[in-house]
């Protein structure tokens, strides 16, 4: 062959020999470039009609321009030889790089992400590889991965399969067994059609092999290999393989295609998540002692790619959290998540203090309730070994849920608060690494007589006085409003004038079912309150309350947020009665006061006004700090609406989510940037955080 010309390529030297034929280095004499030229072996030659199919498919796959796919330039037939001209990839087959003990996790992840990325592109174009294996992946000296033979296996693969499954005799030699068969998915061995998920199986095999140096399914004969693929579970990979990587491999190697990842993009995202985890924490698995472990979330998770200047909506639902990314225009939204799918996320917060870019959330599920944070916009989240928020043993109580995560003041960036169920306040002074029960409130003599509302006995709202550093407020369902003026040491009930419907005494000292309280930082003497029946205002720091339900269709509701700049402007969503708890008359309307509660006006343009039996819960409304301000609300039916003109016009941003229980906003700044003061000081909520609505909004059941 050397010196021979096929098409316009002159064969220079033999590079190697594979299942499909012999590969040569060649020179394209027209385009003056070095190429690889594969001459398809006569035993692999399809009949003439299949030959046409092969040509067609190879040409289709030649359109796969992707940095991790070896480009096919040309397919042709000359002098009875079927040949394929492709990009000449300088590097070593992955197979040859994998030593006996496997590659370091960092390399496995780096190569794995690139292979998955190649599959994403091919699958998007409708092309299944069908013969992905470590021998078909070439790694350059710089670590760039190229996947070979895309689109060629679809036709030729049948021949390989037949050979593998029918001519067992020919497969007795180990060399052949280590070729293609160990990478074949169970459904392919059963003779079913291969689809994208068969490639994901093969990727799982490649990852296993790369991580451990051995194949997951082995045998001395083809029969033994097939049998292992069909029936056996691979030996678990322990340290130093990160558990997150092992979890990904396991999911790729699920025997049933429906149990695997369904898209290559999911595998890529999952690998990237573990990758960032390994890089950031230096954690490559192994025994972790008592230190905090990071987890990664990889079940069908899509990540948002956040840049400086972006704007985020943090959305907590009963079945996981989502991140919605946009920019200052807030017109187009990229959706990330679900994070912690299947777990309830009642509380979220964005902490931009001291140059951080940290998203907090709480998860509640079978396995308990945990606060977690992510410093990389959801790619990895903390998963502490020990639950950081725990009731001390002497209390006899167990944490049921975290309803609120609130940031401390900007001048104390390590301070955080959590409001929990059963009703109690926890405080952290070390950026959330450790938490302690605020005993001053816990020991309040009223506490034994607080009663749970419909949603449980929860401390759900925390409001800090921006001027008086030792003063803060909490709201409890059903206990009422409590205030401390000494940094949490002592607390007094602040419920005078707030009516209760469910007790014989209508104006008790405490026991009110408060749903939300809100304060504008420029008016710390004044509070607004949405009660379980009743809208109130206090101008004496909660000392007494006056009804302000002037012109609303119902004084029942959950959510309540302040305008970012106007201290007289408050937004609520009235709902009908405590039994029905849906938008009044089936019309979803936000109500706004711009005069501190003297009157309220409906805002409904763009919101559903017919048959919309929606509920907006306690924390499912938020404002941003743009001018004009954006207002956002989420419903129990899983819709998110937004208004970018302070409530005048509304658009649906997203639908189809699980029940929304929490929305927060975040303006993303450069990592490490210190807080600018100009805008934030004039803008109320954000004066203490970039999470512009941290302390005001609504969920509800109480």
């Amino acid at each position, binding site marked *: 062959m050397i010196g021979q010309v096929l098409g316009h390529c002159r064969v220079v030297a033999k590079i190697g020999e594979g299942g499909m034929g012999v590969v040569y280095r060649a020179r394209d004499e027209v385009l003056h470039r070095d190429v690889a030229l594969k001459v398809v072996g006569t035993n692999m030659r399809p009949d003439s009609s299949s030959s046409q199919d092969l040509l067609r498919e190879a040409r289709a796959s030649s359109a796969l321009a992707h940095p991790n796919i070896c480009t096919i330039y040309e397919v042709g037939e000359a002098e009875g030889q079927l040949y394929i001209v492709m990009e000449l990839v300088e590097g070593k087959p992955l197979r040859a790089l994998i030593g006996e003990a496997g590659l370091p996790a960092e390399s496995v992840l780096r190569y794995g992400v690139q292979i998955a990325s190649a599959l994403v592109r091919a699958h998007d174009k409708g092309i299944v590889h069908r013969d992905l294996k470590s021998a078909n992946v070439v790694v350059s000296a710089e670590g760039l991965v190229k996947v070979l033979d895309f689109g060629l296996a679809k036709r030729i693969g049948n021949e390989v399969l037949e050979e593998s499954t029918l001519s067992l005799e020919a497969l007795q030699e180990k060399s052949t067994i280590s070729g293609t068969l160990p990478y074949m998915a169970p459904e392919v061995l059963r003779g079913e059609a291969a689809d994208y998920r068969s490639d994901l199986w093969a990727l799982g095999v490649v990852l296993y092999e790369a991580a451990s140096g051995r194949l997951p399914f082995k045998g001395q004969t083809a029969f033994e290999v097939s049998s292992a693929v069909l029936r056996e579970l691979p030996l678990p990979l322990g340290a130093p393989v990160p558990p997150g990587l092992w979890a990904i491999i396991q999911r790729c190697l699920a025997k049933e295609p429906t149990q695997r990842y369904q898209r290559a993009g999911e595998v890529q995202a999952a690998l990237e998540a573990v990758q960032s985890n390994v890089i950031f924490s230096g954690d490559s698995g192994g025994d972790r002692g008592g230190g905090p472990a990071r987890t990664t979330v990889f079940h069908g998770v899509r990540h948002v790619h956040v840049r400086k200047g972006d704007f985020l909506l943090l959305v907590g639902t009963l079945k996981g959290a989502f991140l919605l990314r946009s920019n200052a225009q807030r017109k187009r939204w990229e959706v990330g998540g679900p994070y912690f799918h299947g777990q309830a996320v009642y509380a979220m917060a964005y902490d931009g203090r001291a140059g951080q870019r940290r998203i907090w959330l709480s998860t509640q599920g079978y396995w308990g309730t945990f606060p977690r944070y992510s410093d990389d916009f959801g790619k990895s989240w903390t998963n502490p070994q*020990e639950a950081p928020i725990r*009731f001390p*043993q002497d209390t006899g*109580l167990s944490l049921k849920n975290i309803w609120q995560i609130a940031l401390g003041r900007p001048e104390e960036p390590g301070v955080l608060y959590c409001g929990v169920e059963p009703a109690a306040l926890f405080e952290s002074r070390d950026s959330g690494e450790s938490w302690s029960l605020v005993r001053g409130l816990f020991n309040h003599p009223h506490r034994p007589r607080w009663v749970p509302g419909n949603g449980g006995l929860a401390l759900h709202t925390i409001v800090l006085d921006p001027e008086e550093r030792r003063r803060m407020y909490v709201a409890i369902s059903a206990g009422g409003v409590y205030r401390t003026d000494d940094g949490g040491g002592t607390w007094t009930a602040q419920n005078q004038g707030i009516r209760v419907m469910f007790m014989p005494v209508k104006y008790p000292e405490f026991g009110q079912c408060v749903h939300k309280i809100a304060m504008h930082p420029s008016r710390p003497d004044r509070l607004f309150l949405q009660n379980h029946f009743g809208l109130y205002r206090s101008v004496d720091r909660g000392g007494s309350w006056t009804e302000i339900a002037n012109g609303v269709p119902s004084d029942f509701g959950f959510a309540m947020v302040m305008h970012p700049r106007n201290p007289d402007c408050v937004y609520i969503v009235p709902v009908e009665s405590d039994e029905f708890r849906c938008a009044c008359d089936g019309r979803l309307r936000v109500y706004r006061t711009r005069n501190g509660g003297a009157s309220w006006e409906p805002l409904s343009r763009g919101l559903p006004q017919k048959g919309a039996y929606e509920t907006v819960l306690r924390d499912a409304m938020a404002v941003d700090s743009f001018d004009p301000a954006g207002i956002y609300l989420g419903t129990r039916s899983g819709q998110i609406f937004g208004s970018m003109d302070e409530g005048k016009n509304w658009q649906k941003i997203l639908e189809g989510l699980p029940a929304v229980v929490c929305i927060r906003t975040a303006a993303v700044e450069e990592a490490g940037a210190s807080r600018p003061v100009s805008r934030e000081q004039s803008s109320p909520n954000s004066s203490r955080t970039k999470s512009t609505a941290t302390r005001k909004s609504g969920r509800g059941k109480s």
Partner: protein
Amino acid sequence: MPVIFHIPGPLREFTGGRGKVEVEVEIERSPATVAEALSALYAVYPGVRDRIATEQGQIREHINVFIGAEDIRYTGGLMSRISSGVEISIVPAVSGG
């Protein structure tokens, strides 16, 4: 004495990826209990403790612990007796909505 635990998928992050782990239970008094076996498990794999049990040491509401095929709720709870080589399964209960 050795005890084998079957670890559900969500907790394997805390057992180095292993679905089945063997721990050695030191018998302070005979016979040993599930509580002692769990303590031995927590000592080796501390991350599983707060997932299985509340901070007050009770098995979480929606988590079931089985000795062989028996739910410990019906065999004496955490004080259920165990013998050498017993297999204990930790399984999330059927619930939700």
